[in-house]
């Protein structure tokens, strides 16, 4: 039982950055913005969060309890700003979404690497920061087996759950959310109803950039307390798959990310579990086998926004 519970705990830890980045893409795609540049946005977020915490910890060590929060906020703003390149190119200039998303994947990690490179020398050693401390809910966290899993987590876990609940209500139960979705389904029709399509698309890109970067910053400020090139390790691309797997709904994305997190946790755990004589290469392949299998099943029945990735030109109304 404890093996299974620790597997679930690991799955939750691994799912949170995926969830944040997937939610970023959900907000983008629901407005028709297919941004494949999540990996780059997360990378710039991880760097910004780390650098802000590192500098603040050096200057104000007494504030180390709140610096991760400031780091997360600054990371989100940095992601928002960087994603405006994509937004301006695809919304205003009607450029191809895939091309500019890929451009972000090339540009943003390189920018992060450059900033890190000029900030630290080879003799500085590994820069490290204090991570955001976990919050245990008194009484509940001591419940056998499930207490730690549900009630003794990093604060960002609770924040992410709140964002999921909010997103579910927003997209399904509010007029603003339905208007938002209309932009992704049929922007011309939405425009005839008075919905400011361009403004909604820009807002979508701002939310997307902010959340994706916070997802990246979660890794550096809440998880491992350091930054290194390649720290995102493909999570931006897995998040893209999670949006499709989750069928463009926040609850679906929650399940998809937990599933991917569980697969990853399983492969990590099986590698160190004694008595399992399966080659580790096969065990490492579990998340990839699962992803391909699930996407081949779900992909055939995809119900994504109809105007996803299509440029919006007002004159074509």
């Amino acid at each position, binding site marked *: 039982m404890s093996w299974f519970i*620790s597997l679930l705990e*690991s799955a939750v*830890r*691994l799912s949170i*950055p995926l969830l944040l980045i997937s939610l970023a893409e959900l907000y983008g795609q629901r407005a028709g913005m297919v941004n494949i540049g999540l990996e780059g946005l997360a990378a710039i977020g991880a760097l910004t969060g780390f650098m802000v915490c590192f500098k603040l910890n050096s200057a104000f060590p007494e504030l180390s309890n709140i610096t991760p929060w400031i780091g997360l906020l600054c990371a989100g703003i940095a992601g928002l700003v960087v994603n405006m390149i994509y937004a301006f190119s695809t919304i205003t200039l009607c450029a191809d979404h895939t091309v500019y998303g890929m451009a972000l994947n090339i540009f943003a990690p390189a920018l992060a*690497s450059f900033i*890190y*490179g000029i900030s*630290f*020398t*080879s*003799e*500085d*050693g*590994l*820069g*490290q920061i204090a*991570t955001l401390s976990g919050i245990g809910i008194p009484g509940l966290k001591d419940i056998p087996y499930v207490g730690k899993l549900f009630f003794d987590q990093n604060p960002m876990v609770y924040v992410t759950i709140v964002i999921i609940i909010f997103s579910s209500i927003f997209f399904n139960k509010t007029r603003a959310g339905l208007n938002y979705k209309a932009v992704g389904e049929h922007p011309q029709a939405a425009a005839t109803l008075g919905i400011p399509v361009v403004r909604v698309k820009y807002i979508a890109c701002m939310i997307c950039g902010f959340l994706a970067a916070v997802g990246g910053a979660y*890794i550096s400020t809440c*998880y*491992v*307390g*350091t930054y*290194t*090139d*390649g*720290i995102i*390790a493909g999570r931006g691309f897995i998040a893209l798959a999670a949006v499709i797997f989750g069928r463009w709904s926040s609850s679906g994305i929650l399940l998809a990310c937990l599933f991917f997190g569980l697969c990853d*946790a399983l492969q*990590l*755990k099986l*590698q*160190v*579990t*004694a008595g*399992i004589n399966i080659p*580790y290469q096969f065990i*490492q392949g579990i998340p990839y086998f699962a992803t391909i299998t699930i996407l081949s099943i779900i992909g055939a029945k995809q119900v994504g926004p109809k105007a996803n990735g299509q440029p919006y030109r007002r004159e074509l109304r």
Partner: protein
Amino acid sequence: MKKVLALLLAIVMVSLALVSCGDEKKDGYKVAMICDSNINDGGWGAACYNAMKNAAEKKGWSYEVTDKITQDAYYDSIVAYCALGYDMIFAPGSQYSDACLQAAKEYPNVAFALLNGTVDAPSKAENGNLSSLLPNAQQIGWIAGALAGLMTTSGKLGFIGGMELETTKGKIAGFEEAAKYVASKEGKTVELLNVPYANSFSDAAKGKEFATELINQGADVFFGDASAVDSGARSAIDEYNAAAGSVKVFDIAQPADSLGQNECIICSQVTDNSAMIVASMEAVEAGKFGGEVLYGSLQNGALSAGKISDLVPADIQEKYNAYLQQMIDGTFMK
């Protein structure tokens, strides 16, 4: 008259050119390093860059580096330096073997120093202009394993690997055998838990998860060969120790002396690659470079143990230093 002047000018120019081709290099020797990781990573990349820099400064060579390159750019980066007239290429990793061998074939006058290259790599270079620099992986494992065997109380050790490289496997074997030997002398039995591979040198999150699981299984001393992944592991160890209220789980770092970087680090296995690079540079200057394997060991000072933490009791420090001396003397485990 014009023809005579032109002829004289040509003779002067040819003479000057021939003078500049003499034995003494007018612009000095130059070494370039290529690296797929960041030279500011606080781990492997930084250790190798610092080794090259120190060696170059000692020998008066000028140096240059290209880091963060992807696999498809290994060859192009190397030949770019060759074309610029660099005398030596320093490639820190066996992953550069093929690119170096190809470039060595095309640039016979350039020396290629391949760190952690295979023993047979020099013989594959047609022009005999490639040498392998091989830190003794078994001894690296011994240096960490002996301390782990002395410090463990649970009898369970953890090792986290980045990729399943030959050097990594050598370190694991050395770590395990030294820990078991030393523990047996103390009347303890030691077990190395399953070694996981992150399949990455940068995914620190995986290192944290591996370490968390290994701690759950009882591991109380860690060693690793996974660069930034190791930093994730240390994050998990520090969190565990903070929750426990004291340092109960330890880590042994490598390849630079990292004592003080994390509370859990009790010592480091230090690899001074600069000694082997200096030897390579001297061989280049003497025109005798290539076709050999330069080993880095405890005996020639390329390998050593770093400073020991106060968390290691004085009697254990004494025993550990005695084991290190045995390793240097060649009497360890004999």
